[in-house]
């Protein structure tokens, strides 16, 4: 498969670029650890509320930390891509005879890699502070697989932002766009305990369903009725975003 071989070259280059910026990696891991500290400690008492589904708030938060890290990685991806566009490196790739799709694949694959690295780091931190994964090893693998796909989907959003705007100003601040996706969720409080417009908005956010599925696997294990909706939403959202990104990409390179 020529496309796979070509995209592997571009992937290796992207990987090297990423590894050549250790600050980015350290910041990504640190931000996750810090989230446990800042949200986990002060909100610990929430578990005492009637109807709260988990005894351990750190375990409850783990899904939030994972999903949030992956959602915001879309904003990072946008910046990484924009840097390559601005420097003319993308033009350099387009000058070569490689398939356009290989370039896209090599780019999305790095989004997946970053998601995996981040999620593995979070799971290690979670394990270190005593979070128990009810879904077992299979659950951990499923969480990694699901968030990898989510990472690709968010990478697609980043790609669309970078390609559409070509603006550092917009791209640097694109995390604002990801904020409602990450925060209009039951990240801190189960949906039953949220009220009013917020509860309504949470119901419209696709990330919410993915978050619930991930959290269920972590705190309850394989409770299918809470996992299956998230699974379909993830699949649907990813398909739409990958399709859109491919479309934008083709438009931009023709």
């Amino acid at each position: 498969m020529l496309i796979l071989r070509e995209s592997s070259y571009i992937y290796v280059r992207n990987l090297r670029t990423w590894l050549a910026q250790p600050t980015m990696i350290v910041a990504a891991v640190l931000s996750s650890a810090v989230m446990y500290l800042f949200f986990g400690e002060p909100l610990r008492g929430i578990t005492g509320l009637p109807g709260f589904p988990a005894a351990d708030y750190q375990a409850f938060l783990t899904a939030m930390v994972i999903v949030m890290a992956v959602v915001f990685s879309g904003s990072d991806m946008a910046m990484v891509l924009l840097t390559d566009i601005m420097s003319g490196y993308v033009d350099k790739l387009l000058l070569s005879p490689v398939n356009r799709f290989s370039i896209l694949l090599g780019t999305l694959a790095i989004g997946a890699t970053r998601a995996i690295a981040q999620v593995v780091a979070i799971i290690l931190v979670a394990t270190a502070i005593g979070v128990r994964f009810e879904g077992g090893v299979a659950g951990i693998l499923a969480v990694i697989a699901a968030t990898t796909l989510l990472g690709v989907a968010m990478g697609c959003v980043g790609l669309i932002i970078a390609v559409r705007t070509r603006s550092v100003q917009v791209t640097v601040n694109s995390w604002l766009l990801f904020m409602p996706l990450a925060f209009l969720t039951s990240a801190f409080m189960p949906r039953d305990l949220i009220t009013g417009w917020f509860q309504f908005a949470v119901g419209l956010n696709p990330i919410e369903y993915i978050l619930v599925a991930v959290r269920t696997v972590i705190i309850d294990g394989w409770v299918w009725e809470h996992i299956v909706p998230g699974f379909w939403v993830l699949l649907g959202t990813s398909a739409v975003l990958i399709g859109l990104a491919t479309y934008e990409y083709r438009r931009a390179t023709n």
Partner: protein
Amino acid sequence: MQRPPAVLVQGLEKTYPGGTRAIDGIDFTVEQGEFFGFLGPNGAGKTTTIKILATLLSKSGGHVEVAGIDIDQDARAVRSSIGVALQEVGLDDLSKGRDFLVLQGRLYGVGRAEANRRADELLELVGLSGVGKRKIGSYSGGMRRRIDLAGALMHRPNILFLDEPTSGLDPQSRLAIWEHLEQLNAQGVTVMLTTQHMDEADRLCRRLAIIDHGRLVAEGSPGALKAAVGGDVVRVSFGPMDSPDGRADIALGTLRRLPAVQEADTTPDGLTATVDDGGAAAPAILRALNDAEIPVANLAVTRPSLDDVFLHHTGREIRESDADEDAESRVWGQWMGVNRR
């Protein structure tokens, strides 16, 4: 069978979204093995043309063949057979020089072992062997151009497109690049470069096209272009004279009677004469002035420079500056319909 020309351009047009007409119907041919120069000021359409030939930018009209392949039919085959180094280099600052070369080779389908061998060979050729393991971000301007050139050569292309390969470089680095290019051309590689430097065009290019406002205004060898502008100019300054009154007029009359002289005029300290061939006319002028007992202190023959050629065809002098070609945004900008200024 006759080999197809390296580049065949017929009626090429390019209008950017937003209405800027960058290329206004140009035709030219570059034969295989030629060293062809595209000379013009900023914004003349040089970069746009190179980008269209390299399949990075779409054209609005006309027919283009590169290496005998219609760029509309098989852009990928065109990309495989050419090497390109653009002005906005697009180098990967975080990558090491040698890694960049190997990747560049792999993207063009060069095998792993060959890519590694070739990378070392090219680092040697462009004099960067010592810094192949350093990140490109740490390279100087001249080193960046050289690594970029090496990258364009990884797959041994027969045709090389270079956009202002030496702009912004110090004289030593320019000379080094010129020597590499001459060496490549001697090995049979067709080179087409854009430049706004007369000395560069004069030294390297066997044939030139002058482009201004998206149109070709002149084409030919540097020598022929200069000859077409007009003859050589012979400048004479007089030596000390006992009775200078009226001598200048006598000298002028003497020169005007010579068949080789097309035109003559006085200057504060002597005269100038326009002639077809300065080398042949100079002795005759000296002899005639000697016969008329006009002492000559100095005689110089100047040939028209490419600057004169440019002035002649465009009505202005080329503006030498290292600014980017603003109107010619890169592909991404073009797609956005944005003309970055």
